[in-house]
């Protein structure tokens, strides 16, 4: 019996026995981007420095509407950072991650202990950043944090997704020759993946369904599955239910599946699932590929509020990927 090193932030962080951290986070129109900084006020989370990632989206109505919220949040973050020294990294949403999120810009002082808060950092960027930080020998302790939203509106959350391509840093290095198995992490939006899924069903198609939690996520995930499911799913299409926040379990399962066959990973679901997929890809010797279709615009009320636990505190999850120089997955 064992447990993986993740859970609520106030449960996990003290157990690492790390005294102080460098925090990498991002500003956003989503309220929950301030979650980790709010937390740093309340819990034993001492920050030595911080890096604030500020991304600009391509022009759109949504982006214009989002400006007031963005400005408000940036102000709040600056205020919360207070005396903590921080640097800002600015860039465009559609930029290549490698041009923005290298350790040199994210961790300029080569701090040993780093928290990467992925709450509002787009998947393309945080997965690449995670990989870079894991590979960096200077970083001895790495924790990923994620603040849950209170709710998501019943509407399309984002638009104009680019065609799916391999994520930078996560392309397949060598193929075994057999067609890869496509594993789709289910979420709320289809994101231009129709053809990919239609073609993959000739091989082996799997879906990862974030469960728990139950409704409304449950209902909305089934909605998406009904949209995505090819009109005739192959007999061996499986839908695997995995807890929506359990990155480590995703990692374990995909590693197991990937042993016997190349896998293509499509993280349309919750960020912890995307994290788990990337973690597994890193351990599959170049036989796995993580694909993604980057949306070009996001609804300003992509999420509202911050989820609170029973005692009213923000629900922030933390995943410890590296401790004292030892990889934990």
């Amino acid at each position, binding site marked *: 019996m064992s*447990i993986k090193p993740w859970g609520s932030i106030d449960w996990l962080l003290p157990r690492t026995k790390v005294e102080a951290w460098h925090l990498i986070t991002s500003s956003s129109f989503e309220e929950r981007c301030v979650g980790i900084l709010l937390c740093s006020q309340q819990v034993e989370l001492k920050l030595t420095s911080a890096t604030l990632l500020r991304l600009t989206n391509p022009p759109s109505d949504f982006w214009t509407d989002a400006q007031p919220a963005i400005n408000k949040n940036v102000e709040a973050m600056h205020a919360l950072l207070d005396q903590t020294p921080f640097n800002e990294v600015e860039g465009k949403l559609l930029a290549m991650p490698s041009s923005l999120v290298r350790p040199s810009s994210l961790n300029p002082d080569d701090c040993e202990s780093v928290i990467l808060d992925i709450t509002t950092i787009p998947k393309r960027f945080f997965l690449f950043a995670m990989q870079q930080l894991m590979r960096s020998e200077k970083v001895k302790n790495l924790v990923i944090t994620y603040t849950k939203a209170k709710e998501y509106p019943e509407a399309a959350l984002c638009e104009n997704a680019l065609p799916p391509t391999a994520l930078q840093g996560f392309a397949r290095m060598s193929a075994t020759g057999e067609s890869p198995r496509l594993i789709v992490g289910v979420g709320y939006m289809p994101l231009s993946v129709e053809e990919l899924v239609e073609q993959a069903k000739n091989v082996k198609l799997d879906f990862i369904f974030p469960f728990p939690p139950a409704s409304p996520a449950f209902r909305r995930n089934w909605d998406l599955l*009904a949209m995505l499911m090819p009109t005739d799913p192959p007999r061996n299409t499986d839908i695997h*239910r995995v807890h929506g926040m359990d990155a480590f379990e995703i990692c374990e399962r995909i590693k197991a599946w990937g042993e016997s066959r190349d896998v293509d990973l499509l993280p349309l679901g919750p960020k912890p699932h995307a994290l788990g997929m990337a973690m597994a890809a890193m351990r599959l010797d170049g036989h796995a590929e993580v694909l993604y279709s980057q949306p070009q615009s996001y609804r300003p009320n992509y999420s509202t509020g911050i989820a609170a636990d029973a005692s009213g505190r923000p629900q922030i999850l933390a995943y410890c990927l590296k401790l004292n120089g030892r990889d934990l997955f």
Partner: protein
Amino acid sequence: MSIINTWSTSTIERQNATFKLKQLYELQAIFLFDQYEPVLANPAEAAMSFINRLDRWLSCFSDPIDQWAVFRTFQYFFFVGKDETDELYRCAVNHKLLPWLVEQEKLDIFSPDLSSQLNDVVSQTWPCPVTDSLRINSLLHRTNLKGQSLRPDWLSLKELGDKDRIAKYISNRKNSRGEITPIKYLVLFEDFVGSGSQCGRAAKFALEGFDGPILLAPLVVCHPGDKYLRDLASKSNGRLTYDPVVVLSAECLVSEQPTIGEPSSFPSLRLAMKNGHTKGNFSDPAFGYEGVGSLASSYSNCPNNSPPIFHGVTSTWPYPLFPRKGRA
């Protein structure tokens, strides 16, 4: 498939909405509803496609408006299939039980000895079900959790159990080397909690019959039950920890009075339920046992907290959607 087909060719909006919902339900049928055991037990019923059974169930309602209302709101119905149950088992053990034990024993989760330490603690833990509907053997097998030799359900223990004998079992427990190592921790699992009264009775008895810390980790809990059990735990002086795996949101419950923020189709569902209840002449109340109104079922059985229009059978209501296996 007469009713649903009629909608497929009526107004454009109705046609489109019907298509989307039908596509959704057919998909869910393949991966969820077709697992429903009481239907599988009846070959003639099992041979019908789910969508045809759904259509037949709709015909029980007299008013087409009611038929559309229930068809449309069926998307809010929460069905716990086998795979959901397996994952709930895993979460109950890995996310609730083990962290709780770590906390109790103050273990270091980063220690290289964690695994053997946990195994030791687990060997002194007693996993039990609250009622016999939680399949404790399945839970243990699927999660590789070692149980004790006896796995009584505590609701039955409450009626038939002898506190002295229970105490003796607890204190006489032997480990694999034959040494006496009493049971330190009791963990109670339950599959579905509605109002919480049943679960509460078992938990209260456990507090009397067991001295040590108790974890109550039900898999799926409705709002009323969640409130009740949380309350119970807070009054136990820290002896009872209540940590459910899933608490159903308000959209999986249809209450007698409208609530703020409920789906906008619920008023028409409520009306359909009342009409259906009248037509079916059910002995159970319109909103289910103790008025919980859960829109939920598991693959093994539909709970009686769910409204009887879903599971009841009467002379005027011949076709249930999820026929229920009841207790005498």
